[in-house]
Every structure is written in structure tokens, then in C-alpha cells.
């Protein structure tokens, strides 16, 4: 190589300028690689010049070497800058292409819903569990003894007519003995079973239990009646529990379930299995009273039927309809909607 170092220095300046210009014009990452190797690769002019460095006069070699490095560094950093710019553009383009309208997804899937009666049932259970109660259940096919007789409703009792009872056809029911089988008309037989169990297992009271469950009446389904519905009953048996305790417990329940601003009141009533008996009303935000259920002190005859001495033990009970609460809370106009299983109804609640 016989070029003078001045020419070399001049060419290097031109090379760098060309490189920068050309790189700035590249707009594709693939082309950028090709351009980079054209300027920086083994066969590039820059590499040739570097190889010819040893022919440069010794006194200029450092100057030319420096200029060589400068040109390479300039081009290299231009490649990197351009690579970053093009990468950014590519990412932006891809993101643009992937744009979605997420509102398209709304309302496409069908979601599962608990039946509103179950929702209400579980809320009630939770409130009572929070108050210290446990939850019990019992059979829906009952005997006359559990459903009526043990509840101070002997066969001749006129109040039996208050319950339109569905009885089972005795044909083909082996092993039942003399017991008349029926579909329980209330959840109260679970109270009897709970008390008998407590006595039989030797522990005896205290008992603090709620019994939610399905009950039956011989009734035609219409907007306000169903032959099958659900109740929940609370039972407390202990030494010296009183009507005042009952009123206080109902008030606590009212605040916990309906809300702290509402209150409860008791009105005298009649049920064969409790005495004194009362209707329970809950105040409404509009100032009216909503009748929710019945309550009372467990009748001495009921305690006796379960083997508990009424002089030693006393108890109270409070029961009401789950369906009715659900109906009121959710503005259900026709109770039959609860059993029709129309998905258009079920998915609303």
C-alpha cells in the first residue's frame, strides 16, 4: 500500500459519513445486518484499511490507527442506534396490529348462579353461626310422632288442620310399624330429633342450633304458594332461658341479617308447640312492619316428649320462611319462578 496517510485520513472521514448516511436510510432490521457487514465486515473497506495499517509510515501509524478506530466506532454506534430505533418501530407495529376491542368480550359467557333460595339459606346460616349456633338437619319424610305428636299436637288436636299435610301411601312400606308417614310440614321435627339426640347421647342441653330445610304442604302452586318451600328454625334449650332472651336473640339476628338500623317486635300469637308464642315483625326503612315468622318458649309438653324436665330446662324457638325472605329481598313476583328452573330467571339473581 502506497497511499499517503492524508488520503487515508480523508477516505476514513468519507467512509464514516457514507456509513452514517446509508445506515440512516435502512428501514428494515434484515437490511441493517447487511449494511453493517458491508461497512464493518471482513471484506469491508474499513477492514482493508486496517490491514494496510502496517504499511503506513511509522510516524503516522498512530494517527491513522486512531482515525480508523474512530470511523469504526462511529459506524458501530450508528448501527446500534438504528437497530434500537427499528426494534422500537417493529414493536410498535406489532402492538398496533394486535389491538383488540375488549368490550367485544362482554356478555359472551354464561356464568353460574346459586339458586336465590340457597343464597338466602347460606346467608342465614352464616349469621346464626356467627351468633354461636350450629346447623342441624333431618329427614323430609317424617313420622306423625315427630311432625305433630311430639310437638304438642296429639291426633285429635284441632290446630292440626292448620297444616295441610301430604301423607305417604302405606302400601309397600315395610317395617314402618304403626307410624303414619308424611312429608314434614315444618322443620320443627328437627328440633325434636336434636333434643332427643342430646338426651340420648348423655350430654343433654345446652342446645343452640338452627335447622334449615325443605318442607311440604298440600297446596296448589300459584304466585304466592308452593307445595314445597324452605324454613329455618332456631332452637335454644338451657337452664333459665326466657322470653326476654328470645326477644334479645331475635333483635341481635335482626341487626345482623337485616341491618343495624332495623329493629324487631313481638306480637302475641298461638302455636301448639310454644307458649308464650309470638309473631315476629321486622321494621322496614319506610316505617312499616314486615311479618317474618313465629317464635315462642318451647312448650313444656314438647320438652317432656324429648325427655327433658320443664322444671329444670327451658327453651325458645324462632322460625321463618326462607323463600319469603328471598322473594321480598329480590322482588320476585311469582313464587313459581323458584321451581320452574328457567335459566333466564336463575341467571338474574
Amino acid at each position, binding site marked *: 500500500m502506497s497511499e499517503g496517510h492524508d488520503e487515508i485520513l480523508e477516505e476514513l472521514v468519507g467512509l464514516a459519513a457514507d456509513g452514517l448516511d446509508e445506515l440512516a436510510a435502512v428501514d428494515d432490521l434484515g437490511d441493517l445486518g447487511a449494511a453493517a457487514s458491508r461497512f464493518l465486515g471482513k471484506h469491508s473497506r474499513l477492514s482493508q484499511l486496517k490491514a494496510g495499517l502496517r504499511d503506513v509510515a511509522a510516524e503516522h501509524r498512530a494517527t491513522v490507527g486512531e482515525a480508523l478506530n474512530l470511523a469504526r466506532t462511529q459506524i458501530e454506534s450508528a448501527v446500534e442506534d438504528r437497530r434500537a430505533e427499528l426494534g422500537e418501530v417493529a414493536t410498535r407495529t406489532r402492538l398496533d396490529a394486535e389491538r383488540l376491542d375488549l368490550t367485544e368480550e362482554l356478555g359472551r359467557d354464561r356464568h353460574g*348462579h346459586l339458586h336465590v333460595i340457597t343464597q338466602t339459606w347460606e346467608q342465614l346460616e352464616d349469621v346464626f353461626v356467627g351468633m354461636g349456633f350450629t346447623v342441624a338437619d333431618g329427614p323430609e319424610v*317424617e313420622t306423625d310422632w315427630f311432625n305433630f305428636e311430639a310437638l304438642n299436637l296429639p291426633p285429635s288436636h*284441632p290446630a292440626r288442620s292448620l297444616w295441610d299435610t301430604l301423607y305417604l301411601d302405606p302400601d309397600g312400606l315395610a317395617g314402618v310399624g304403626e307410624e303414619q308417614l308424611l312429608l314434614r310440614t315444618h322443620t320443627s321435627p328437627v328440633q325434636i330429633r336434636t333434643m332427643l339426640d342430646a338426651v340420648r347421647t348423655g350430654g343433654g342441653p345446652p342446645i343452640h342450633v338452627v335447622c334449615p330445610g325443605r318442607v311440604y304442604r298440600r297446596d296448589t302452586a300459584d304466585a304466592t304458594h308452593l307445595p314445597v318451600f324452605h324454613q329455618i328454625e332456631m332452637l335454644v334449650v338451657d337452664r333459665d332461658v*326466657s322470653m326476654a332472651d328470645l*326477644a334479645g336473640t331475635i333483635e341481635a339476628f335482626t341487626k345482623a341479617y337485616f341491618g343495624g338500623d332495623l329493629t324487631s317486635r313481638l306480637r302475641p300469637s*298461638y302455636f301448639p308447640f310454644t307458649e308464650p308464642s309470638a309473631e315476629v315483625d321486622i321494621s322496614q326503612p319506610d316505617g312499616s312492619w314486615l311479618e317474618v315468622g313465629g317464635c315462642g*318458649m318451647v312448650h313444656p309438653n314438647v320438652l317432656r316428649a324429648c325427655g327433658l324436665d320443664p322444671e329444670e330446662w*327451658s327453651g325458645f324457638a324462632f322460625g321463618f320462611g326462607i323463600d319469603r325472605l328471598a322473594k321480598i329481598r329480590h322482588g320476585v313476583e311469582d313464587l313459581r319462578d323458584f321451581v320452574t328452573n328457567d335459566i333466564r330467571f336463575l341467571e338474574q339473581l
Partner: protein
Amino acid sequence: MRLARSWLAEFTPLELAADELSDLLSDLGLEVEEVTTVGDVPSEVVVARVLEVRPHPDADRIRLVDVDPGDGSPLQVCCGANNMAAGDLVALAPVGTVMPDGLEIASRRMRGQVSDGMLCSERELGLGDGHEGILVLDGPATPGSPLVDVLGVRPDVVVEVDVLPNRPDALSVLGVARDVAARLGTPFDVDGGPSVVLDGPLEGASVALDAPDLCGRFATCVLDDVRVGPSPAWLAARLEAAGMRPINVVVDVTNYVMLELGQPSHAFDLALVPDGHLGVRRARAGERLVTLDGVERTLDLADAVVVDRDDRVLALAGVMGGAETEISGTTTSVLLEVAWWDPPTVAATSARLGLHSEASLRFKRGVDTGIGRRAMDRVAELLVEHAGASVRPGVAEVTGDLPVPATIPLRPERVARTLGRAFPTDEVRSLLEPMGFGVVGDDELVVSVPTWRPDCTVEVDLVEEVGRMYGLSRLPRTLPRITQRGRLTEAQVRRRAIRRTLVGAGLSEAMPLPFLAPGDLERCELPVTGLLLANPLVAEESVLRPSLLPGLVAAVAYNATHRSTEVRLFEIGRVFEVGEGVLTDVGDSSRAGRVLAGERERLGVVLGGRHAGSAVRLLEAVLEAVGIVGPTLVNEPLPGLHPGRSARVRVRDDRTGSLVDVGSVGEIHPVVLERHGIAEAVAWLDLDLSVLLALEVAARRARSVSRYPSADVDLAFVVDDAVPAETVRATVRETGAPLVTSVRLFDVFRSDALGPGRRSLAYTVRFQAPDRTLTDPEVAEVRQRIIEAVESIDGATLRS
């Protein structure tokens, strides 16, 4: 029972507004169903004379009526009724009148004709709804005079009280007034009884009692010279307000006294009763009587009847009189019967015949045993006053088994313990005595129950009365001490977890009625079991379901008819079956049996538009939610399901280590779907929660996951259809243990090349060691063992 405030006020001074009276009665346990204001005629309404009635030129149903409102300037009024004629006196609401329903009368045009006011009906005036058309006055009146003055009506409040079964005394004005007076502390019944007092022997009538167990007292008296005509307006109005139809003065007076005092009585036409003799006996089976309502009734040994001298049945005791001896326009002498009938006897007769009257209602609840003579005197008094009757002195009376009111010891300590508030003896006395209870003693009280409270027989009845009269809402409110901690049981928690899992998977909860129609089970290809109801309301609801399947399939069908397809539903509910030992645990010795055999709680799932595989995957999710991993499926045809797409579900009981049946999974039988008009496949899952929720399930143990690399190997085997995929998978897993950490089936295919009855099952098998990176030779060695093990299954080969 409907009663007027003005009537109550005849027994105790009463100055309560309608809502105050309503609240007071409710607080006494006399629940008020409805309060209505009657007789509140607007003062602007005047009497007007009809001058002319003309047709409306453009409306057939409207008449133009010219009336004279008394001021000499006639008005034209349009009227929809046509029961008036020129000269009639009618009620006119002039323009500006506000009617009881809030409507303000304005001058307006009807089809082009002016109407300056409204001619009113009784209903529009709040006077009742007895008559059609507008009110036309009977007597003379001056046009222009206020209607309220002409009719002499005063506003009154009628309350409808829902009388509880234990309060027969409250089925009378007297009884309700007694409670009200006791609560308010006002004087009660100060006038005492009626002015007529019948006593001594009776001429021309006699009584006999052959069934003292059915009749506690039977008494008659005679009223002569009776003019049977309509009742005076005030009396008829009170009956109507109470919901009873006026008939004639004699019948009306007996009804009036029944409402007032609670004692029903029955009037016979004396001329139709030979010798005026009445007897009481038990009916004979098959005896017949045509009752007042014109229906022939067949009697029974359990009924009590009133008979004449010749043993002919005249009346059904306590329920209804006979048509033959009914009071008529020609009656001049009335034979009045006042009796006390045995409540269960009347209840049974009334129920058997489906014949419920105001009288039977009172007798079956228990009439005051001490009110009979007063009621008789009161009827006599009213008939003297309003029917011109003359009293024949004397009473024919015979008594049977009349219950004696109880005398009950009452411990104030017991009152305090039950009510949760101390009641000093003086306070107990002051609460009970105004209701008629006699209270003696200072510490231990002895209470004598009045004749009108047969419901009070034991101490707690009196405790209730103390609480009721004091006011239950005034009792303190305390909380009992609860020593236990509230919690849900394991089974209850698991039931909730199952529900949440299903809802999370997109299913909604259904609640079909648990009744089936005969034939529903056959339609679903299910065995015909289930308990039958003895007295179903309709045949469609006469079978208690033995399976959740028919109800859920019907729900899918119902939704399909409403164009909702691919509906996915679940239900948790009881099913019932006839079975060996049904209810045997309910003997006298052990009434506390928890569950009646034959009744089980089950989960049912239907997945519309899905195949069996979806149900299997859902099954795994449900079981995992309650801590059970890896159910065993046994492919086999099951009732109601597609025979080639159904399997029995088994899970391991960690207590015994054995497998237990917990249900079935698959697809509803296409024939069943077709019968229900369902056009899509429906996947099915059924689990016996009675078993599943009670299973002992050990808490799952955590295993730390390996931090070393894993290696995947794909293996495909060609296997006979008879070999369950699960067998292949289990073989791979067991042979590869412990290095094989997962075996996932990723492809199943059949082809001609594979041959009929065979399919290829392709698995991704993942290898991983907990403590090192596996080497290729290690993996290859295990892979080879796996292939050999699978190929040892009959007909299975590695697909190369």
C-alpha cells in the same frame, strides 16, 4: 272476625283512631288483617230529585239525567246506571266534592254532553257494596239536604281480626272489648246484661238430653207474636259490616247476638215442632237431613242431632239447622234453642261434611259455658224491641257434661323465669283480674279461670296471659349465654364447596319440585321406584322422586322450549326410595334415629349440548373440591343413560381403604332426550352426597416440587376398545414410578389402518427426579419398561 269500633264502644269507652285501635289489637294478639272506614259520606253530597232521564245521543251506555239539587237550578249529570226514574230521590255529589276514594268531582264532558256532578252508588259513598246501580232513597227527603243527615250515618271503623285458635272468647265483640278494656284500664260491660231476664218453668215446650257427652247444656224458650220482617237498618248494617247477609229479623237477631256475645242460637218455627219438644241424641249411621242451605246430608254416629217429639231429626247440632223447621214469613212463635256443644264433636261433623258455619266455628273452638242464658235474654230483648215479640216466661233447660274451668296454681317465680322479668304478685293480679281471672293468695297464687277461657288449663297458659297483657314488646331484651362456638360441620362445608365449584364452572342451581307424575320414570328409562303419596293434590305430583334425573331433564326440556339451549344446571336435593328397612330406626325405643333409610341427598348435573367427557371432567373438579383425587370409573350401561356412554363412579374411603360407589356419569339416553323433545346431547353426573359428604377424607399432604429439569416422552399405543384408557394410563404411571410425574392423554384416534375395535391412545409422559437431572439412558430404560408393561395388556402394541 270483622267488628265495628262503635260496637266495641258499647262495652267499653273507646276513643281510638283507626290505626291506634289496630295497633292495640295487634299487640294483644288479635292480629288485624284489614281496617276499613265505613259510613264516611262526604258532607257535600246532597239529596237530589230526578227530573228527567234521557238517552245520550252518542253513547248507548250513558244516560243524561236532569236533577234538582234543591236550589231551584237543575243540573245535567251523565250517569252509567239506569235504575232511576223521574221523581226518584238520589245522592248527588256536586262539582268539588272529594269522594272517599280521593276522586274530586269536576265539571266535564262525556261524549260532548256536560256532566255537572255525579250520582253516587252505595259503594262510591263508602256505605257498602250491597246493591247494583246508584243509591235511590226509600223514604221522603228534601232535595238539597245533606245525605249524612238524611241517612243518619256516622263514620265507623271496621277491623278484621284474625282470631287465633286458642281464643274462642275473641270470636265476639264482648270478648274483644274485654281485652281492650283490660289493657286500657277502662270500665267494661258496666250495664251488665239485657233488660229481659227469662227464668222459671216454661209452658208449651220441653227438652230432653240423650247424649250428655255431646251436649253440655240445652235450653229453649219461646217468643210469641213475632212479626217476621226485615231487620232495622242499623242491625242489618252491622251484620253486613261483619260479612253476614241479613235474612229476616229473627235469624238476624240470633246472628247479631252470636257476633256480640259469641253464643250461637237457633230459631225454630214453633208451629212446626210438635209439642214444642226438642231432644238431643247421637245420630244414627245413614240418617238424612236437608240442611238450611238446601243440601241433603248423610249423618254419622259421631254427629249430634236435635230431634222432635217423634224422633225426627230437625237440626245438625252446632253446625246447621234443618230446612223443614226454618223461620218463614208465616212464623208467629219462635222456639229458640241455646246450647253448648262438645267442641271435638262439632269439629268432626263440620270437617266430615265440609260444612263450615259461623256457629260451627264458635262451637268447635269452645263457646263460653256461662254465657247461654244471657244470650237467650238478649235475643228475647231484641225480638221484643224489633219484631214485636212478647216473651213467654220460663226456660226449658237440661245440662250434660259441661266442662268446669280450671283452677291453677301460679308461681310468680315461674312467671319471672319464663318471661325474663320479675312480676310482683300485685302486678300479676292487676294484669289477670281485668280479663276475668280470679286471683287469690299472696305468694303462691291460685288462679281460677273464667268460663270464656277454656284454653287456659296449665300454669304456662297463665304465664302467657301475664306476658300478653303486659305487652311482649315491653319485655327486656337480653342475650342468653352461649358457651359453644358456632361452626359448620365438615359435611356442610363440603356441600358448600361443591356448590361453589359447580357455579364456578358456569352451572346454575335448579330446584325442581320433588314430585313426579306416574310414567315420568318410565319416560326416563328408570326403574319404577319412589314413594307414593296417599293424598296428592294432583296425579302429576303423586310420586316422590327416587332420582334427580327426571326433574333435571324436564328443566332442560323446559328451557329448550323457551329457546335456551346449552343450559347447564345442577341440583342438590333429597331422593326417596322404597327399600328394605325403610324407617325401621323409628321405633319407640329409639325415636332419635337421624336419617330415615330410603331418603338420600344427591347431586344431579345436566350439561346441555355437552358430551359425557364434559361431565367426567366436571366430576374431577367436584371431587377435588372436597379433597378426593382420582375417582375410579367403571364403564357400564346404567338406567336412563346412553348405554355406551355411562360409567359408575367410585372413590376411595380413606377409613377402610376400600372403593365405594358414589354415583354415575355419562350422557342421558338419546331415547329419553327424544321423548322430552331435546335436540342436543345432554351430559349427566349424579353423586350420592349422603355417602360423599360422610366419607372420611384424609387431609392431603403437600409434596415439594422438583427443581430439576424434566423430560417429556410421547408414547402412542394401539389398544382394543375393551381396554379402558385408564388401565393404560395407570400402567404407565405405576411402571414409571417414581420418575414419571404425569401422564397426559393428548390424542385418541381410530382408522381403517388400525382395524375395527381398536384405537390409538397417545400420551405425553413427563419424567423428573426430585434430586437430580435425569440422564438420557435413565429415561430410555424406564421408557422401555413402560412399553413392555403396556404391551403386556392383551392386544396393546406400541404404535411406531
